[in-house]
């Protein structure tokens, strides 16, 4: 019998305590909870209050060292395709054209001073696939591929998740390709005219130019 009454007592007191807590929160709803981060010393001393963040209208800024959306600074890209091979989900697609000697100056140098020897007409990152693992960033020799602090890049159409970073338009790429082919044909002809093992030499040279790195 005493357990019966103590149960009722416990029930009453716990309900009263719970309701007091709920009512306290109800009246605290006129305030906003402070936005101190977990690393703030006052994190647990913030006022109680509404903690809803109305997201598109109010945003907690992502930290500047955040690693979210992948970005390629194509001006520094040398077209080595290491990132393409390193990517575990194959979200990077690259196409390169070897630069002809007279174009080397136009193609320019990286910010690190390295001569670029490849045009990169196609550098596509499928951000819908990218899982921000950062392997591509670690293998990039010129540090031109990195994750940025941009966290919200949602799209209505999944095709818009394909980011194009290539630095040549289609017409330009076609012109460069034609120029390279012409130059190669020229070189082959000259080699043949110079004589000495005419058939053996041009063939191995031509093959890597068509499929520069991926063939290995």
């Amino acid at each position, binding site marked *: 019998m005493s357990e*019966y009454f103590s149960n*009722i007592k416990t029930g009453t007191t716990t*309900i009263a305590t*719970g*309701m007091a*807590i*709920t*009512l306290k*929160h*109800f009246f*605290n*709803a006129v305030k906003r*909870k402070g936005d101190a981060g977990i690393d703030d010393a006052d994190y647990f001393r913030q006022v*109680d*209050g*509404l*903690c*809803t963040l*109305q997201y598109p209208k109010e945003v907690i800024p992502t930290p500047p060292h955040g690693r979210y959306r992948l970005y390629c600074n194509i001006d520094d890209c040398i077209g080595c395709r290491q990132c393409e091979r390193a990517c575990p989900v194959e979200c990077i697609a690259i196409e390169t054209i070897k630069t002809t000697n007279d174009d080397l100056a136009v193609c320019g140098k990286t910010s690190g001073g390295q001569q670029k020897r490849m045009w990169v007409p196609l550098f596509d990152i499928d951000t819908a696939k990218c899982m921000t693992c950062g392997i591509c960033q670690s293998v990039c020799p010129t540090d031109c591929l990195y994750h940025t602090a941009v966290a919200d890049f949602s799209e209505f159409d999944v095709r818009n998740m394909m980011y194009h970073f290539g630095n040549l338009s289609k017409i330009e790429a076609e012109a460069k390709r034609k120029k390279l082919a012409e130059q190669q044909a020229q070189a082959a002809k000259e080699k043949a005219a110079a004589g000495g093992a005419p058939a053996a030499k041009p063939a191995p040279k031509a093959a890597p130019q068509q499929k520069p790195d991926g063939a290995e």
Partner: protein
Amino acid sequence: MSSSPSLNTWSDALSGFSIGWFPLGLVIVAVIPLVFIALYALTYGVYGERKISAFMQDRLGPMEVGFWGILQTLADILKLLQKEDIVPTAADKFLFVVGPGILFVGSFLAFAVLPFGPAFIGADLNVGLFYAVGIVAIEVVGILAAGWGSNNKWALYGAVRSVAQIVSYEIPASIALLCAAMMAGTLSMQQITVMQAGPNGFMHWFLFNNPIAWLPFLIYFISSLAETNRAPFDIPEAESELVAGYFTEYSGMKFAVIFLAEYGSMFMVSAIIAIAFLGGWTSPLPNIGGLELNTMTSGPVWGAFWIIMKGFFFIFVQMWLRWTLPRLRVDQLMYLCWKVLTPFALISFVLTAVWEIYR
């Protein structure tokens, strides 16, 4: 029907009004509570509950439609109206369609005896309280019809639980209300309220008139939560176990009608508890010397204001409890009803009787 000349003047005048053979006045008397239920369910019931629950959980609630989400309920109504009214092929068509109707009618019929102020009541029955307790039992039929007709295990389980719960909790609820009836010496809702009117405002209320009145008051309040299937007694519609209980299969306007019935009975039990223990439409303010606050705040319009405010207060307490307490287990529910509430209701019944004889 009316017993005092100053009571029920508006509703009596309305019920005498007819165009030819058509009793238009009677229709208006019935329409007023109906419109009230719809308006209150729209504003305070849905929007208010969403906001209150949000604030209690440190959230904001609906914010997008209109200023602070004020038009959210209208948007929801438009959505419900456009929804396809699905009747499952395996359902018992008749019961499935008729269930929500019975449910709503059951909760609406009790509004006939709720006095909305001294001048307005649907029907001033001399057995008003008894009628209100009895007619609500029709809801059980509606719930069982809906649950059985759905031909769905969740719905049937919800219906069975709900029926067991409502039938059990009617016993402590009725005994607790009997205490109020004993204090008043009548079952007429208007007379019970008149007994609690006086120049001292809340001092005349049964709750403060009798040293043990708080016990039946509390017991009736707890039982009314169970009867309206509100948390913590919402095991008939326990989302985590039964999807939505007896209205799992309902969509569109039938779903809306079930919701309206729930909000209707929420206000109904809140109004009954206000009438039985907190003086119904009487003003809580006392006359202090020459400052006649009670006289100033009495009258037909003030009466309607007070009863609606008291009802809303108890609905707020219901919401408050809902967002505080977790759901009871079925055995705990029955334990609370049969082993705690019923004995205490009987004790308070006896004590009230003794008090009424010897005070």
